[in-house]
C-alpha cells in the first residue's frame, strides 16, 4: 500500500482565493436551505394536539439518531421550493424512502417539481427495495400549471401523467411495502396515494380523503356535505375501510407507522466500525479552480473519503487520465472511477475493464466526475476515441452493480454519460456546488454558435458587426454558464442534490450502505474483456 502524500497547501494564496469562491457558493446553498427548514423548535407540545410542520413529521418518523439523506432538496422554480420533501432515513433501523407533502408550500400542490420528486422517491424505493412511506397532505394537481409554463420544466399533459400511481402499485407487487399517513386533505389524485398503499394511517379530525371535496360535490350533485362526514378519518376507518389505523393525533400516527415498519423484514445490520480517513475533506474547499482549467489530482479527493484513507490503484501506469481504485467505504468494498481531466483512449479502455472487474466482484461503483469530455482531434479520431468511448458507455450501461455518482468538478458531453450520468441508471447522483455540467463548456458553445453564425453570414454575404457579434457571444456564454451551473441543474432535478464537500464521505457512505442493503449481483453476461 503506497502512502499518499497530499500536495494541498492550505496557506497558499491561490488556495485561499479559491476557498473564498467555494465559500460564496456554500453561502448560497445555506441561504437556500435557511428559507426552507421548518421551524427550529418543534411545534409539538405534550398537552396540545397540534399540526406539525413537514420537518417535524419527518424527524419524528425516523429514528432519533438517523441520518436523513434528502433527495432533490433544491428542486423548484427558483421562486419557491417544491411543495414536498423526498429523502431516505432509518425507521426502526431500516432504511426507508419518505415522500412528504409540505402543506406550507402552495398547500402541497402537485407541481411539476413535486411530480419529479415523487417519481424519484418511487424509483429509489424500487431500485433499492426500500419501504416507501408517504406523508400525505396535498391540495392535488396543480391547476395553474395547465396554463403557466415554467421556463425549463414543463408540466406534461394530463394524459401523460399518472405514472406515479402505476409505480406505487408496482412497488407493492415487487414485495416492497408502502405506507401512507394522511395528515390533511387528500383529494382526487391525492386520494389514491392512500388508496394504492399497503397500509394507511388516518388522523382524527385531520385526515380528509375524498374523490371530490364538498365544493365539487355541491357543484356536481347539489348535495351539501361537510368534509369530515364526507371523508374524515372516522368514516374511513369505521365505514369505508380505506383507513387501517385510526389515530388521535399526528404523533400517534407517526408512532403507528414506526410500529408497522418494526414488523417488516429486518435489514442487514450495518457495519459501523471503520476508521475515518486520515485527511480532512475541509482541505478541498480551496482545491479547485473555479473554471476547472487547472487540473487537480482526484486522488486528493479519494484519500479524503475512503476508510482509513487506504486505496489500491488499478493499472496505475496505463491511461492515467482516469483513476480506477479499489477501496472501502463505511466498510463496504467499492470500486472508484475518477477523472483526471480529459478522457483519452487508454483511460477509456481501462475504465471499461475496471467496470467489468467490479461486476465480477459484485461491488458498487463510485463515479467521480471531473472531465471536459473525450479527447477530440484528428489523432484521437484515428485512434478510435469514439469506439473507446462507446466501449465505456456500453460497459457502464450494462453494469449491474449499483452506481453512485458525484460531480465534483466539470462534467461535459459524452463524458457525462460515460461516467454514469443521470440517464445511465445510477442509484444516486450528487454534485458539489462548484460542479458544472453541460453538453460542452460555455466558451466552446459560444465559439461553435459564433462560427455557425459567421458561416451563415458569409453564405448570405452579410457583414458582421464585430461589436454586436461579441455581445451575442457574451449572451450565449452567460446563458451556457447559467445552464451548466450546479444550482440550475439541481433546481431542475437533473441530480439528487448539491452537497457540501465536507459531507462527501457521509453522502457516498450512506448511499453505499443503502445500495448494499440487497445482495449485489454484477453482470455475468460476459467474461472480462481486456480492451
Amino acid at each position, binding site marked *: 500500500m503506497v502512502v499518499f502524500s497530499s500536495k494541498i497547501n492550505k496557506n497558499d494564496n491561490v488556495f485561499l482565493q479559491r476557498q473564498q469562491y467555494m465559500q460564496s457558493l456554500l453561502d448560497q446553498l*445555506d441561504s437556500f*436551505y435557511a428559507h*426552507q*427548514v421548518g421551524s*427550529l*423548535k*418543534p411545534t409539538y407540545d*405534550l398537552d396540545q394536539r397540534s399540526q406539525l410542520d413537514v420537518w417535524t413529521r419527518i*424527524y*419524528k418518523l425516523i429514528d*432519533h*439518531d*438517523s*441520518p*436523513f*439523506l*434528502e433527495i432533490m*432538496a433544491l428542486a423548484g422554480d427558483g421562486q419557491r421550493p417544491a411543495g414536498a420533501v423526498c429523502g431516505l432515513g432509518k425507521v426502526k433501523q431500516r432504511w426507508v424512502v419518505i415522500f412528504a407533502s409540505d402543506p406550507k408550500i402552495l398547500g402541497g400542490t402537485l407541481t411539476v417539481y413535486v411530480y419529479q420528486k415523487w417519481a424519484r422517491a418511487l424509483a429509489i424505493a424500487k431500485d433499492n427495495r426500500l419501504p416507501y412511506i408517504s406523508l400525505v397532505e396535498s391540495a392535488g394537481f396543480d391547476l395553474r400549471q395547465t396554463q403557466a409554463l415554467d421556463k425549463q420544466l414543463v408540466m406534461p399533459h394530463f394524459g401523460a401523467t399518472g405514472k406515479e400511481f402505476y409505480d406505487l402499485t408496482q412497488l407493492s407487487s415487487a414485495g416492497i411495502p408502502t405506507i401512507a399517513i394522511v395528515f390533511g386533505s387528500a383529494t382526487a389524485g391525492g386520494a389514491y396515494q392512500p388508496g394504492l398503499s399497503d397500509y394507511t394511517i388516518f388522523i*382524527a379530525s385531520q385526515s380528509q380523503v375524498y374523490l371530490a371535496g364538498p365544493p365539487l360535490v355541491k357543484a356536481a350533485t347539489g348535495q351539501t356535505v361537510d368534509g369530515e362526514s364526507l371523508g374524515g378519518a372516522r368514516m374511513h376507518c369505521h365505514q369505508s375501510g380505506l383507513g387501517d389505523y385510526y389515530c388521535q393525533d399526528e*404523533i*400517534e400516527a*407517526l*408512532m403507528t407507522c414506526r410500529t408497522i415498519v418494526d414488523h417488516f423484514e429486518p435489514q442487514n445490520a450495518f457495519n*459501523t*466500525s*471503520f*476508521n*475515518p480517513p486520515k485527511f480532512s475533506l475541509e482541505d478541498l474547499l480551496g482545491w479547485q479552480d473555479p473554471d476547472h482549467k487547472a487540473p487537480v489530482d482526484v486522488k486528493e479527493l479519494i484519500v479524503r473519503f475512503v476508510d482509513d484513507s487506504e486505496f489500491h490503484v488499478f493499472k496505475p501506469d496505463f491511461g492515467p487520465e482516469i483513476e480506477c481504485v479499489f477501496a472501502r467505504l*463505511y466498510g463496504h468494498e467499492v470500486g472508484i472511477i475518477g477523472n483526471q481531466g480529459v478522457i483519452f483512449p487508454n483511460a477509456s479502455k481501462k475504465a471499461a475493464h475496471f467496470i467489468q472487474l467490479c461486476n465480477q466482484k459484485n461491488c458498487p461503483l463510485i463515479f467521480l466526475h471531473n472531465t471536459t469530455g473525450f479527447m477530440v482531434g484528428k489523432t484521437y479520431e484515428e485512434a478510435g476515441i469514439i469506439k473507446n468511448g462507446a466501449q465505456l458507455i456500453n460497459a457502464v450501461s450494462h453494469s449491474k452493480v449499483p452506481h453512485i455518482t458525484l460531480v465534483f468538478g466539470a462534467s461535459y458531453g459524452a463524458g457525462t454519460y460515460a461516467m454514469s450520468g443521470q440517464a445511465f441508471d445510477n442509484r444516486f447522483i450528487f454534485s458539489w456546488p462548484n460542479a458544472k455540467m453541460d453538453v460542452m463548456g460555455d466558451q466552446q458553445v459560444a465559439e461553435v454558435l459564433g462560427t455557425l453564425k459567421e458561416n451563415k453570414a458569409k453564405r448570405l454575404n452579410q457583414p458582421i458587426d464585430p461589436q454586436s457579434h461579441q455581445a451575442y457571444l457574451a449572451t450565449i456564454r452567460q446563458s451556457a454558464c447559467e445552464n451548466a451551473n450546479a444550482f440550475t441543474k439541481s433546481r431542475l432535478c437533473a441530480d439528487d*442534490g448539491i*452537497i*457540501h464537500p465536507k*459531507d462527501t464521505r*457521509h*453522502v457516498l*457512505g*450512506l448511499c453505499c450502505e443503502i445500495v448494499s442493503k440487497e445482495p449485489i449481483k454484477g453482470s455475468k453476461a460476459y467474461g472480462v474483456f481486456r480492451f
Partner: protein
Amino acid sequence: MIRKLLIVNRGEIALRIHEAAQTLGIETIGIYTQWDECCTHVQQLSQLCVVSSYTSKEEILAIAESQRADAIHPGYGFLAEDSEFVEQVLNLGLTWVGPHIKAHRALSSKSQANALADAQKVPTLTINRPIKTLKEKDFPLMIKAEYGGGGRGMCRVESLSSFQKEYDFIQKESLHLFGDDHLILESFKSNVRHIEVQLLGDQHGHLIHLYTRDCSVQRRHQKIIESAPALGLSPKTEQAICSAALKMGRALQYDSVGTIEFLVDPVTEAFWFIEGNPRLQVEHGVTEQVTGVDLVVWQLRVASGEPLTLSQDMIHVSGHAIQARIYAEDPKQQWQPSFGQILFFNPSQRLIQKNAWSIQLDSQISNFVDPMMGKMIVHASSQVTAIGKLLQALNETHIGGIANNMDWVREIITHTDYRSGHYTTKRFEGFKLPQKSSFSPWKIATALSLILQYPFQEYPLHWSIRGQRWSTLRMRYQDQIQHVLYCMRDNQTIVFEDQTTISLIDHKISDVTLQIDTLRLKVSAFLNNNHLEFKCEQGTFTLTILTDQAIQKIRSSDHQHHLCAPIPGTVIKVLCDHNQVVSKGDDLLVIEAMKMHHVIKAPHSGSIQSIQVEVGQVIGVGEQLCQVNPEKAVDPDLVA
C-alpha cells in the same frame, strides 16, 4: 472445633463470615432465596442451599442436618436475636456462633436487659410503672417491642392522648414481626448521642471491651453512619461507659461478640443503658479497623471453645474509622425505597473493602431483600483524614438504577456539625439534601444520552444534507420535564440553543470526559433504556428520557384516570368505596413497602369507578389500584 459452618444470612455479612471461616479452615455453606440470585454471597460462596426466606427456621435447621453442618452463624438481623431459634439450634446439638442461651435471652428481652442493668447499677430509661399511671409529664416517651430491633417495633409518643393508639399499633406490629406483643416504655431523651461498647468474651471467663462506637447519625432509628472510637467523650466518661458494659457482660458470663448500647447526654455526659445485642453488628467493622482485632474470627474461635488470648491491656485504639451504610432509598423523594435492578455498579476499588457489598450488577432490590446494599468502611489516622477517604470513596462509587443515600452521606460527613462531633441522634434525622439549584443537568444529560446511546463513532448520526439538524430530547428530572434543543456540530460536539457546546474528550465505558465550553468535567454515567444517570462532583443525577412513545403512553393513561402503584408492596388499607365521591388529595389506599406506608391520594375530585385491589394483596409497580373518574368527562370523544 467447628468443621462446617452454615451461614444463615446474605450479602456482605455472609461474605464477611465466609472469609473469616476460611482463614480458620472452616468449610462453609450458605443459603439464598429465589429473589437473590444476583446477591454477592450467592456468587462467591461455593456451597449454597435455596430457602423460601432467610428467616425460615425449619428449612434452615433441615439444611443444617442434611448438610451435616456443625455450627450456625446468623450474622445480624432477626434470626440472630431470636432466642427460640438459638434453642432449636442447640437442641440439634449444633454450635451457635453467639453467646450462651441465657445471655442471649437476657439481652434479647428488653425488660430482662433493663433488669440486669438495674442490678448492675447501670442507669436506664425504663418506666416501670403501670400504663394507667402515666401522666402528661412522662411524655414524650418511647414504646418499644420487648424483642424489637433494627429500628422496627418502636415508636415515639408525644402525648397521653395519642398513647393508646400508638401502643396498639406497635403491639400489633411486634406480634407480626417478632412473634411477641410485649412492649416496654422508656422515657424519651431528645438531645443525646448513641454510643455503644463492643464486648468480646470466651467460655473460660475472659471478657474484654473494644472501646466505643458512635452511631448517632440515624434516620428513623436506623443507623446510617457509625464511627469508632466515639469522639468528644471525656476519658472519665468513656471509662465509665466501658466499665458499665463490662459489668453487665460479666454478670452474664458473656462468651461471644456483643454490644451494649447507651444514650449519652453530650453536655452532662450522663448515660443510660438502652439495649444489648447478643450478636455481631453491622458496624463491627469500624471497631475492627481501629483495634486491629478480627471480631468475626474471634467470634468463631470462642464459639469453638478456644480461650481468648487477648487481654484488655492489649487493646488499643489507633486512628479513626467511619462506616457509611448505603441504602436503596431516595433522599430526594422523601426517602422512598428504591426498587429495581442494579443497572450499573462501579464501586471504589482503592479505598474500601471489596466485599462490603451485597449488590453487584443486575442484583434485584425488592421488597424481599434488605435495602442496605452495602457499607463503606474507611480507616485513617484521624477523623479528618477518614472523612477525606470516605468522601473519595463516595465520589468514586457509582450505583446506577437504584436511588441511594450516598449524596446524603456525603453532605453529612462534610457538615461542620459532623466534623466537630457536636451532634446528637436528632441532628441529621430530618437532614435534607440542599437543592443544587445552580447546577442544571439538562445539557450534560443530553450529551451523555447521545454519547452512551450512539457512541460517537465515525457515522453521520443526526446528519442531514442541510447541515446542522436541530433535534430535541425530552427528559424528566425530578418533577420537571424539559425539552432540550440541540444539534450535532460534528461527531464529537453538540451545540445547544444558547450556543453552549459540549464536546466529548474521552469515553471509556462509563467514564466520560466532557468539555462544556471551557470547563472540563469527568463524569461516571450510564444509560439503560430510557434511564440515564450520571455522577460528578456536583452530585448524582437521574433522568428519564421521554420518547414519543412514552409520552403517548402518559397521555393515554391520563385519559383513563387509573391510579397505579408507584412502588411494589402490600396493600394494607383501602380507604375508599366503590362509587364514593372523593375530593382531590383524599387518601384512597395505603401500600406498605419496606418500612414505609405510602398513601395513594386522589389525583382529582371525582368518584371511585372501581377498586382493583384488596387489603393484603401484594402488588407490583405500575399495577392498577383503582380508577377515579373526574366530576365531568373531559374527553370530547367520550361525550360524542
